């Protein structure tokens, strides 16, 4: 499985940025769960599941990147590092797969939340996520391409939502998901130069910060009413 490294100066910065995404996702998932406890509406549970799975996916990425940067790469020379990346240890490969699979499942669930499709189709989507994850082994961009499409569908759904309610918070949410989609476009090109990875990571964290601002505004609007 091909694995590309970011520039050395960006080691750990990407982990910090991804950790911010984990915190934002967990925060929203936590509140959504507390709302589910009050209302018992399944949509809250689905949103909680989706955001928690996405958070877990990012956490796994942070963990395997940390291990690669600090435990596996640091004692190696440049040449050895290159050879190492050609044949990654099995547990790292599995961790990368798990990260991708969970990311796709999390987004599928978020997409399903707004569609009038039977929830049983969730299992079919999970199967497709598994298949895509497997094929992304040789073509990593397949994962980012699928993520991009899912994010575009989700963004489009929120555009429709915003047209109906004209809320500034829904507009911000739409911008957040559109920015996430943009980051996936950049991730697809990181084979060309690893600076694309840097740009994609920064744009992705901006997207999650927009999500955080949206959530803070939702709480504030709730308080002022």
């Amino acid at each position: 499985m091909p694995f590309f490294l970011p520039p050395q100066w960006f080691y750990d910065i990407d982990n910090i940025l991804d950790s911010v995404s984990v915190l934002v996702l967990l925060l929203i998932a936590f509140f959504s769960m507390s709302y589910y406890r009050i209302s018992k509406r399944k949509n809250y549970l689905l949103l909680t599941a989706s955001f928690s799975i996405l958070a877990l996916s990012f956490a796994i990425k942070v963990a395997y990147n940390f291990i690669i940067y600090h435990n596996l790469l640091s004692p190696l020379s440049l040449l050895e590092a290159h050879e190492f990346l050609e044949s990654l240890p099995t547990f790292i490969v599995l961790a990368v797969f798990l990260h991708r699979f969970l990311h796709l499942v999390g987004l599928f669930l978020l997409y399903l939340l707004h569609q009038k499709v039977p929830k049983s189709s969730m299992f079919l989507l999970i199967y497709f996520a598994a298949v895509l994850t497997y094929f992304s082994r040789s073509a990593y961009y397949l994962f980012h391409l699928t993520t991009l499409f899912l994010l575009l569908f989700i963004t489009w759904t929120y555009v429709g939502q915003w047209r109906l309610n004209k809320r500034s918070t829904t507009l911000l949410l739409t911008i957040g998901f559109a920015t996430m989609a943009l980051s996936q476009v950049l991730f697809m090109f990181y084979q060309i130069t690893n600076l694309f990875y840097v740009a994609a990571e920064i744009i992705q964290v901006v997207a999650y910060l927009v999500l955080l601002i949206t959530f803070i505004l939702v709480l504030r609007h709730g308080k002022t009413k």
Partner: protein
Amino acid sequence: MAKRNRVQIVGDMLSVIQQNGGEIKPTHLMYKANLSHMQMRPLLEELLAKELVARVKKHQYDYFIITEKGVHLSQKLKEMREFEKTFGL
């Protein structure tokens, strides 16, 4: 206007009491929260049982006052409604 669910009605009831200075007569609550007597009675009993509101006697009339727990739930329900509208749930 869409039909309100049970949680929304409870939220409206608590909100009406708050807007009325924290206390209200049952008939006023019924009108201001757009409820029938049949709808309001079991909900009010539930709110009393859960200590979200309390019954007090004032000038020979029954009043319902919102408790601290009720204020907290009302706040949470407003946040929840805002969250629901933003995320389109």
